[in-house]
């Protein structure tokens, strides 16, 4: 379990990194928590690693009025612990707590996990749920922003070009009066989820539902996003029947069997968790409605 030979490059600016990527056809090394195991098992053998850990200007968490912007070098643990980010968007911490184990969160980056595009990854689904975007830089195309809806293409496959660096991601703040929830079931604490569901529910000033969506992981090739707003539309927060949502979810997902669970069981969990997550997000929203 030792990687095949590779060149190691250590740029200090984004442009330098983009130049190296283009020149070598190598891969970006961020936290290494996904890439290094793949290389050690020789499932990946990039000719070069462009280590961005010394690159300046991509280390910050910026909490704005509309969004939380997360730089490429922000570790899961830093974002999880970031109080202003939590205040602006509690879902980030709620989901991050389920990403792997503390030691892995200390190294692994949130942007890296989004670029990695694992259909079992939490943060891709959160980005999708919130309607976020990825900021990319390459030598050929310069800087561009890719919407989450377009970003996740397939398992471990994103719209990011091989020569592009994701310099940051933007998690928009849900509208006022929104609550959120992240629920998942994994075999062991910290494992990739058998099924996970993130939910955002928005209430109007009378605490009636005006919006609701869920994003699910481990039940499709990419995060599965389902708008279920009309199911709860106009119901009072304490009297919503979310059962219609589970039907929509059931139609949208395509879970597969693996050694840990049958497809049927995953389908069942998706329904149970969707119901629970929507209820939890609704309850979370109620006290956030301005009196």
């Amino acid at each position: 379990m030792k990687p095949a030979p590779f060149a190691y490059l250590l740029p200090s600016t984004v442009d330098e990194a983009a130049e190296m990527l283009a020149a070598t056809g190598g891969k970006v090394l961020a936290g290494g928590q996904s890439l290094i195991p793949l290389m050690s098992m020789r499932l990946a053998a990039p000719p070069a690693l462009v280590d961005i850990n010394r690159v300046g200007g991509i280390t910050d968490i910026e909490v704005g009025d509309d969004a939380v912007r997360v730089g490429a070098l922000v570790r899961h643990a830093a974002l999880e612990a970031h109080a202003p980010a939590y205040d602006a968007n509690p879902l980030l911490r709620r989901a991050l707590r389920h990403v792997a184990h503390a030691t892995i969160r200390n190294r692994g980056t949130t942007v890296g996990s989004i670029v990695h595009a694992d259909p079992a990854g939490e943060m891709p689904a959160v980005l999708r749920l919130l309607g976020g975007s990825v900021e990319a830089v390459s030598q050929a195309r310069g800087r561009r922003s890719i919407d989450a809806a377009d970003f996740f293409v397939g398992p471990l496959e994103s719209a990011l070009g091989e020569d592009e660096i994701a310099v940051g991601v933007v998690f928009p703040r849900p509208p006022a009066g929104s609550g959120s929830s992240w629920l998942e079931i994994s075999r062991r604490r910290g494992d990739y989820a058998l099924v996970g569901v993130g939910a955002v529910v928005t209430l109007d000033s009378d605490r009636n539902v005006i919006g609701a969506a869920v994003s699910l992981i481990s039940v499709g090739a990419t995060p599965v996003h389902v708008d279920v707003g009309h199911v709860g539309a106009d119901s009072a927060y304490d009297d919503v029947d979310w059962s219609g949502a589970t039907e929509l979810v059931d139609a949208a997902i395509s879970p597969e069997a693996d050694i840990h669970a049958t497809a049927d069981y995953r389908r069942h969990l998706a329904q149970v968790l969707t119901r629970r997550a929507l209820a939890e997000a609704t309850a979370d929203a109620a006290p956030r409605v301005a009196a």
Partner: protein
Amino acid sequence: MTTKLFGQRIRRVEDPRLLSGRGRYLDDLGHDALAVAFVRSPHAHARVLDIDVSAALEVEGLVAIFSYDDLDGKTSEPLPLLIPHPALTHGRTPYALAKDEVNHVGEAIVMVVASDRYVAEDVVGLIRVDYELLPPVVGVERARDGGALVHDDVPGNVAATMVQEVGDAAAAIDASPRRQRLQLSIERSASMPMEGKGVLARWDADDESLLVHTSTQTSTSVRQAIAAKLSLPVDRVEVVTPDVGGGFGVKIVHPWPEEILVPWASVRLNRPVKWVEDRREHFISSAHERGQLHDVTVGYGDDGRVTGLSVQFWHDNGAYTPYGLIVPIITSTQLLGPYKPTAYRVEFASLYTNTVMVTPYRGAGRPQGCFVMERVMDAIAADLGLDRALVRERNFIQPDEMPYDHGLTFQDGRPLIYDSGDFPASLSKLKQLVGWDDFAKYRERAAAEGRRVGIGLACYVEGTGVGPYEGGHIRVETDGSVVVSTGLTTQGQGHQTMLAQIVADELGVPMERVRVTTGDTRRFKYAVGTFASRTAVMSGSAVALTARKVRAKALRIASNALEAAVDDLEIVDGHVQVKGSPGSQVDLGAVAVLSNPLRYAFDEAAARATQFATPHDPDQPPVAADDEPGLEGSGFFSPTRSTFANGMHAVVVETDPDTAEVKILRYCVVHDCGTIINPMIVEGQVHGGVAQGIGGALFERMEYDESGQLLNASYMDFLMPYASEIPHIEIDHLETPSPLNPLGVKGAGEAGVIPVSAAIAAAIEDAEGVVITAMPISPSELFDLRRAREQRGEAR
């Protein structure tokens, strides 16, 4: 008086070193050594047609490539069949490198030696092997139907069949008022030590000697095996175990191919050579355990008393049988647990499959047997509507029936005779600990909250302290420190602490003065190894007996020095003194000086033993004819047969009505390992065992597909539980001393793991009302059981 250390919760002396990163494991050694990697078979069953290394030869750093054809002398013969048995009519062992056929994914075919492991793996990737695929035999059912064969010359894939019977079970079952048949299965798991295997060999061409470090559970036997295979005189080979990061059974198997190949390459290349197993290699080329199918018929009375029990089972032994029939023999005998069916018949077939071989893993066949017997007890209780604890009680061997002879032959070739134990007392302690009789009320309260809870219990008896012998050597140094060596090995159990407690007590020295060495053949050459929960019983007894000898010698020498009778002396805090008059004393270091008459005073203390310093009888030799210099001695302990520990576990689970997740709410253990040397260490062993048991009950399995690929050969997908999956474990002890050794102790190392699957199956069954016949069970499988019940239209 020195306070007695035996029985105290003494903190483990090894922990500060191990926990602060100062352990020295195999991979911490030999940084100057060449590295080894192997080409391993990607196929479960194939003929090796051709090996082409041409593309690899130019790699910088490559030192050598070896395949079967390079092996010479006895290294080219199959590896030894370690434990022959008359019933093992078709025992098969692998070659160190595959000769012309591979029988499981992971079998080593080519050995690459290079400057480092990276280069070695690069070379492995460039070697091409051509195979002719043969039909793979995977799983007990396919092995049993015999349509395809693992070994051409083993008809029906049957390595062995064996029957043991006491009484006429079939007749007893026929005559029983009630009968049931159960079909039960347990999946494969494995020892999975955190540190895999590893070997470092240094050939010294000038001295013509070989020093081998290996992460093993038996250094003495590895030494013999290497000497035999490499045709070296045994005295030219020494084997040392460094710190070992867990064994759990897999490292008692030896010699592993690598334990022969690495020393062989070191001799051949005249360089130090090292191989460190990686996790994938460990999954696919070491050993697994557990996989068995059982078909059980039981006859019993209306009171629940078992009158006849007949068990037929099929044991998946994987591709090879170097460890003989130990696992199925243990299953077949230890299945009986604390119970005494009037008549018992057991028959098993040990079957070859194209999978990693099966050798003992902590519990060694007992978890399967316990699962079967305890499922039977629960089935009887369910049938009769009796309390499950009561049915067990009615079948218990009673304390006044000890020693109890089952009339069977155990794994050590000796009669299965329980030496002691008080099963009714253990059960009543357990019921009290878990609140067995109050559970119905708890269940009602939980149900009112929409929660499903269940309780289960399971009992086991474990033969421990298997012979033939262990020994120890103890020397008191002239500075008063005490050096203890025992030949068996340690893998983190706390042996250094436990053995030091015993020796310190026996010799009357402070524990800090005692240093214990294990598993180093340079220090102690006669030993068997660490397995079968035997160290406290075997080495513990051996060092106790040895310490008594050394003590006697110390008193004899001191009696001259103090001019007092031996009977009037005692040893307190490292000083020999006249009883009741501590003013008249000599410290043990000084006694050690006096024990060794000297010519040269190499230091101040030594001067006291030189020829002009001490008064002596000029007509006697300085060392008496029946004496030896030095305050030291060795001794051995060899018991007539195994001593039988026992225990009972109860578990309370909650199952989620929606998600089918299983949560352990309480885990209670009553444990009887005879006299306890160190309760903290025993409890640690129980904790670890229960954790592994929970792994086997709810998480771990070896997921082979039909072609014999192991689909979950990594810690990502082989779900060893984390600390977060293990509940708090409540423990109570009973101490029923063993009459079979001087300390009254019984083994404790494996105990915790044995009844866990049985207890958890019972608790889930209790919570869910579906019959559990197979373990482990995942939420997905429990969900399927619920679905199946709904489809049958049954209510919960």
